[in-house]
């Protein structure tokens, strides 16, 4: 059995203010009130503002979350780049173009001018050679006419400029309605973009990838199998991973950690050598808390869809090891309170390995950006998790009770991820974890994710999983 490692990771955002109105909450609220619609449109951020937003820079790996200054982060405009080694923030015109390039079923009809803009911009993109840009010509047409068809959606850029029509794929199948397919195509495009960066930015041979596991949230299927799945293979195909197959791991927001564990197990067992975990973005969550943002005079902060990808491979002697003997799971009988869940995920696996909670340098938990969640009354999720973990450390005797704030400050971090569910659940920290564990700045990172299963009304239970990543002892200190 070989030890699995996480060798590389990539993380992307697509800034899509024009699509924010298609988020679940705005799509229900905005049509009912023209005044609120105008307020919403007037509160959308420019691309430059989205790039300069420091939590976004932390998400694409330009800065570590602990380097974030004190809030507010809105309004600050430090010099910032859209690209990092292993990530980017893509503007909406390019993203619409990318979606059109990845659309195999004539769902997207781009306005001619927008198609030209997107084609010119994408042609200058570092990954242009990996995308079939000639598809943009075929996707251009009478966007206004398509948007006006029964069952179609109108897509916008520049706040309120019609940019595309988006067709449904079936006249009677709700699983193939335009709104569902838009969610799925946005997910496919962000996941594919993350895969393209993972492979190209790190010099990975696309044909070396054996298997792709998607932990994305969207349900791909038809009315006979609504969550049929395999977004993974759709993304692998789109990213040119010609020798790969794939499958999806679904577990609400907790899915990334089981996906990493399954990938590690496939590598450790020798079934596959190179397995990629990928997560595409969640369009329904755009604008989810816009009412709180508008109420507090903030811009609509949920205006990005994210993507994340990481390579799990055989031990290279350098990259952080996936400790398959350090996996925590939330058992059926474990209890559902937050301390009980955190005990199962954050404490028990360490105890199994004879480690204390101080042996972990970074806890990567649910890292939702509190500047997004607090205005709507949802509180500071990461801080809550870190305080729970610190309290458990104090109860164990690992730290004194007075040291709880220090534990939170040193081993926790501010939330920096957009409220994209699974992407905020530990997965967003993976690029930082790989960097710190490879450089020797950290020895152990505990990845902890939770999922709200009860939302699907099949159980009152939640779930969660954790996995310990550890510095490869054979690696030199760089």
């Amino acid at each position: 059995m070989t030890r699995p490692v996480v060798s590389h990771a990539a993380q992307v955002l697509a800034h899509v203010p024009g699509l924010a109105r298609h988020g679940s909450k705005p799509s229900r609220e905005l049509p009912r009130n023209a005044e609120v619609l105008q307020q919403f449109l007037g509160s959308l951020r420019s691309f430059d503002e989205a790039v300069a937003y420091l939590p976004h820079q932390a998400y694409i790996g330009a800065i570590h979350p602990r380097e974030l200054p004190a809030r507010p982060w809105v309004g600050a405009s430090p010099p910032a780049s859209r690209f990092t080694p292993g990530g980017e923030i893509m503007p909406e015109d390019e993203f619409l173009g990318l979606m059109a390039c990845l659309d195999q079923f004539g769902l997207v009809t781009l306005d001619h001018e927008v198609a030209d803009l997107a084609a010119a911009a994408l042609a200058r993109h570092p990954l242009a050679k990996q995308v079939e840009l000639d598809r943009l010509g075929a996707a251009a047409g009478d966007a206004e006419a398509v948007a006006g068809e029964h069952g179609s959606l109108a897509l916008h850029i520049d706040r309120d400029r019609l940019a595309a029509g988006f067709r449904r794929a079936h006249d009677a199948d709700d699983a193939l309605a335009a709104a569902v397919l838009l969610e799925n195509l946005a997910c496919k495009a962000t996941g594919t973009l993350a895969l393209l960066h993972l492979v190209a930015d790190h010099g990975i041979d696309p044909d070396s990838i054996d298997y792709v596991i998607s932990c994305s949230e969207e349900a791909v299927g038809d009315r006979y199998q609504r969550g049929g799945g395999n977004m993974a293979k759709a993304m692998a195909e789109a990213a040119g991973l010609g020798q790969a197959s794939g499958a999806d791991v679904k577990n609400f927001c907790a899915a990334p950690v089981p996906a990493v564990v399954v990938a590690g197990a496939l590598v450790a067992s020798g079934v596959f050598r190179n397995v990629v975990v990928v997560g595409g973005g969640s369009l329904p969550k755009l604008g989810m808390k816009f009412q709180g943002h508008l109420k507090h005079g903030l811009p609509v902060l949920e205006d990005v869809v994210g993507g994340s990808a990481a390579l799990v491979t055989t031990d290279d002697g350098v990259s952080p090891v996936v400790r398959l003997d350090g996996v925590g799971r939330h058992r059926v009988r474990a209890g559902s309170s937050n301390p009980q869940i955190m005990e199962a995920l954050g404490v028990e696996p360490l105890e199994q390995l004879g480690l204390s909670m101080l042996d972990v340098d970074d806890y990567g938990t649910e890292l939702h950006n509190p500047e997004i969640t607090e205005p709507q009354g949802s509180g500071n999720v990461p801080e809550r998790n870190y305080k729970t973990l610190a309290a458990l450390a104090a109860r164990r005797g690992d730290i004194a009770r007075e040291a709880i704030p220090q534990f939170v400050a040193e081993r926790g971090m501010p939330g920096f991820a957009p409220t994209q569910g699974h992407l905020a659940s530990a997965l967003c920290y993976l690029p930082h974890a790989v960097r710190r564990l490879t450089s020797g700045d950290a020895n152990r990172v505990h990845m902890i994710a939770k999922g709200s299963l009860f939302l699907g009304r099949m159980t009152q239970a939640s779930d969660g999983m954790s996995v310990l990543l550890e510095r490869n002892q054979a690696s030199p200190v760089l």
Partner: protein
Amino acid sequence: MSPVFDGKLVIALGERDGVAGPAIAACAKAAGNEVVFSATECFV
């Protein structure tokens, strides 16, 4: 029976990072109330 909920039917809404719906429902039942609905929600 709890004087606060005396004679009342209970709708128990839990929060994922706080107290789950079934836990609230169990407390209400233990206090002698009838729980007509219980669920947990996620607000992030």
